[in-house]
């Protein structure tokens, strides 16, 4: 595409004093600060990412386990009750659990899934802000 002479001259005459050297000096100073802070920031980001991944996996596994109990292993109740309530020390709680077993386990599974996913959303925010 050819250049229009009149417009070309208009732009070619544009030679403002931009003081690029001063800006470069300021930028160099800021780059040095970034160099000092960046390794620590990178380490923190990596740590956050690792924690988030662990939370996600634990949440996913816990959710799957609880959903598995709801759907396929009603007989595992006794083992779970023994584990949680240590025998039959809390009869009211045991009764409540027996009555609302499916609801409680489904809610727990959903909570596990959600809690496991939350840090992932945060990680996204962290990496964007970094």
């Amino acid at each position, binding site marked *: *595409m050819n*250049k*229009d002479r*009149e*417009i*070309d001259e*208009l*732009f*070619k*005459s*544009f030679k*403002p004093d*931009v003081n*690029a050297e001063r*800006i*470069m000096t*300021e*930028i*160099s100073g*800021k*780059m040095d600060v*970034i160099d000092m802070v*960046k390794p620590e920031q990178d380490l923190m980001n990596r740590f956050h990412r690792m924690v988030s991944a662990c939370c996600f996996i634990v949440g996913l596994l816990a959710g799957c386990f609880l959903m598995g109990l709801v759907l396929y292993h009603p007989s595992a109740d006794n083992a779970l009750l023994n584990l949680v309530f240590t025998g039959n020390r809390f009869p009211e709680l045991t009764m409540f659990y027996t009555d609302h077993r499916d609801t409680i386990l489904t809610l727990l599974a959903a909570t596990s899934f959600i809690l496991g996913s939350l840090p992932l959303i945060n990680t996204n925010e962290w990496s964007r802000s970094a």
Partner: protein
Amino acid sequence: MTRDRFIQLLEKEQEGLLKFLLALCDGNHPEAEDLAQETSLKAYLSYRGYVERFKFSTWLYRIAYNSFIDHRRKKSFPTVPLEAGIHIESTERPGRNEFEGLYSAIEGLPLDEKTALLLFYMEDMKIIDIAIVMRKPTGTVKSYLSRGRNHLKEKLKDE
């Protein structure tokens, strides 16, 4: 790319970048300098991801253009100064007088046309590079240039 190489390339492009941003900001020196710094630091944070098959200047101007758009978007939200009753902001822009003719000619142009004209005439960029900076097809860039030229000529005639 090494840090030294990055700084060397940045130094080479800094003046052109400042001129481009100054014209985009219609002669507002402090705003252009802030944007140049923001662009350079953003480039510094991601220069390891820079692919050398693209020109460094194209990559840098793309960051600058995106920063300018972000900056303008933020500015478009109305803000009320805390001391609105006392402080009256001056509408005069520092350092603008010298090239008033150019600034007033490009001031009212749509951003796409203005950017295409500045990169084509001031930075001597090729259409393909402008297309990369603006993330637009080359045909669209050509039409921005053509329309921008017509608008600019009309403005220059009026003056």
